[in-house]
């Protein structure tokens, strides 16, 4: 009543009064609305969680069904880019596995080749090849090598003998091989496999001097304002984390990068300081030094990237975002195509991802035609992690003519 009188007769003696201060209606409305909204959201989220759980379960079912065995996967990821999914190799370039006399020799030989790689001429199924098989010593573990060797022999060796290989056998092979380096070609294999047809003779392996003395001084001792290269890039140019692996990169590519640091088209403060103290001949000598080094991979996938996606980007690309396969330009298995396309395999994942970010961020603009800038732009952060991790998981560039450099350098340490 008091309220009514107040409204109807505001002019009469108005007494301040206190009435029961209930929660204002709007607050109630908001509370009710929020409750409804919250419940609805919970219901909605719960539903989508259910859905995604179900999706995931279905996905894993699909994966489980469509993955017959680990050997197929390993072969696809590690061998098929060169030997092809059907194992027929590449004419004049990569020996076939199908019908190969070497594969027919059994899983033990295949494991040895996987562990050591081949570096020299060989004849397979009547064709001559210049062998450049990488060593998977650092890229695959015992179980994986065993699985692969079993898979390859079971699939292609026309043999009735046992083709299974256990990881214990591989482990003992690994220990036996130690640091023997790559097979020198078919002739060396023929010493172990009596049934091999005639093999081309091994070329006399020249003892490669790893770089001239001036380059070695720079690498190991540095000078004035130049810290020694090895102090960051490692004794063998193997790099770490965001410091790149230099071993095996094309010499001309290394020289170009050093010049780009000087010109400012590639930005990195430490390197920009270093190149101030380097002359052109020294850069060339350093390029020649590192290109000759062959060292096992120390790179590992550490960015939690999706390796499957990384493999897809590297092997097939993703045309829906305008990205061609990495290997279209960087060579099969990312071994590089000198001089403009550096090897990517066994490069450190944080370094690779950082470079992709640098193309976008403008710290690097030294790429031909802006190819890498455009590709990096198209890749999401997850894609960059994925492809960097995948590339880090690959074996390093196979031994070339200079495979002895590694041992020599180690002797000097």
């Amino acid at each position, binding site marked *: 009543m008091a309220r009514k009188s107040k409204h109807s007769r505001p002019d009469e003696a108005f007494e301040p009064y206190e009435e029961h201060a209930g929660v204002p209606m709007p607050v109630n409305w908001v509370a009710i609305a929020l409750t409804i909204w919250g419940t609805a959201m919970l219901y909605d989220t719960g539903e989508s969680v259910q859905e995604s759980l179900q999706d995931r379960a279905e996905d894993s079912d699909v*994966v489980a069904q469509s993955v017959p065995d680990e050997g197929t996967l390993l072969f696809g990821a590690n061998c098929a880019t060169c030997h092809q999914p059907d194992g027929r190799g590449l004419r004049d370039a990569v020996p076939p596995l199908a019908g190969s006399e070497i594969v027919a020799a059994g899983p033990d030989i295949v494991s040895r080749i996987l562990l050591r790689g081949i570096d020299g001429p060989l004849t397979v199924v009547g064709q001559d090849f210049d062998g450049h098989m990488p060593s998977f010593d650092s890229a695959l573990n015992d179980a994986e090598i065993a699985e692969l060797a079993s898979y390859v022999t079971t699939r292609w060796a026309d043999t009735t003998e046992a083709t299974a290989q256990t990881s214990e056998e591989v482990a003992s092979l690994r220990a036996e091989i130690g640091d023997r380096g790559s097979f020198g070609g078919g002739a060396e294999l023929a010493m172990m496999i009596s049934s091999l047809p005639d093999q081309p003779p091994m070329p006399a392996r020249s003892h490669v001097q790893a770089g001239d003395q001036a380059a070695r001084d720079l690498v190991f001792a540095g000078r004035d304002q130049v810290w020694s290269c090895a102090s960051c890039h490692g004794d063998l140019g193997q790099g770490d984390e965001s410091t790149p692996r230099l071993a095996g990169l094309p010499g001309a590519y290394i020289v170009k990068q050093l010049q780009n640091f000087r010109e400012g088209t590639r930005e990195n403060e430490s390197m920009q300081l270093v190149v101030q103290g380097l002359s052109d001949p020294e850069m060339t000598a350093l390029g020649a030094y590192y290109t000759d080094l062959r060292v096992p991979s120390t790179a590992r996938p550490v960015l939690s990237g*999706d390796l499957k996606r990384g493999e897809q980007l590297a092997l097939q690309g993703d045309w829906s975002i305008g990205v061609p396969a990495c290997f279209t330009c960087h060579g099969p298995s990312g071994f590089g195509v000198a001089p403009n396309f550096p090897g990517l395999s066994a490069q450190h994942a944080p370094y690779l991802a950082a470079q992709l970010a640098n193309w976008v961020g403008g710290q690097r603009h030294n790429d031909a035609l802006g190819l890498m800038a455009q590709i990096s732009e198209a890749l999401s952060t997850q894609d960059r992690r994925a492809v960097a991790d995948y590339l880090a998981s690959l074996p390093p560039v196979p031994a070339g003519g200079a495979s002895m450099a590694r041992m020599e350098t180690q002797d000097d340490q």
Partner: protein
Amino acid sequence: MNRYLPLSILALAILAFATLMLVIAPGMQINSRPAPEGLTPYSEAEQRGRETYVSLGCLYCHSQQPRSGDQAPDGERGWGRASVAADYTYDQPHQLGTMRTGPDLLNVGARLPSEGWHLTHLYQPRAIFDWSIMPAYPYLFDEKPQAGPGDVVVALPAEYAPQDGVVVATQQALDLTAYLQSLDRTYEVPADGLRDHGYGTPDGPEPTPSEEER
């Protein structure tokens, strides 16, 4: 309001329970873990360097706890994998830090393994990064007309080098550098590294479904 005793007891009980659950239990859990294989105790020089690190207050600008990819792009920054409790086995007290005015340093030894680089950078950060806001630590170095035997000369660009003579590192600078170089937790995450990844993806490749099924 005069039942102080039960109130106090209740309050203390709650406090004790919280301490038990948040401090004592985790402490016991962590203490029972062996040190990771890849982690070595600090050498004497590194330990002295660590004391310098603490005394200079590096902690106020540098954290020592890289985060996982779903929290921060530390991996791409090159700061390394997300750290786990076992990584700090020999850090007493730990130098986790909260501020990231400068980069995280838990893996600086892997990222920047060069002694020469660190000496230059400690003497004058601007010699390398002209935009750096890190203080210089010239008092960790001596200027000498000539390097004596065993002196470690600091590589400096002309504009920061003394007119004549050389800059050599004191033992304190060498120790600090040794400590920084020793900061390397890039080994594999120890099994059961005691890290709760919540809803994020754990570091390292996800186990494939086929592995889980086995």
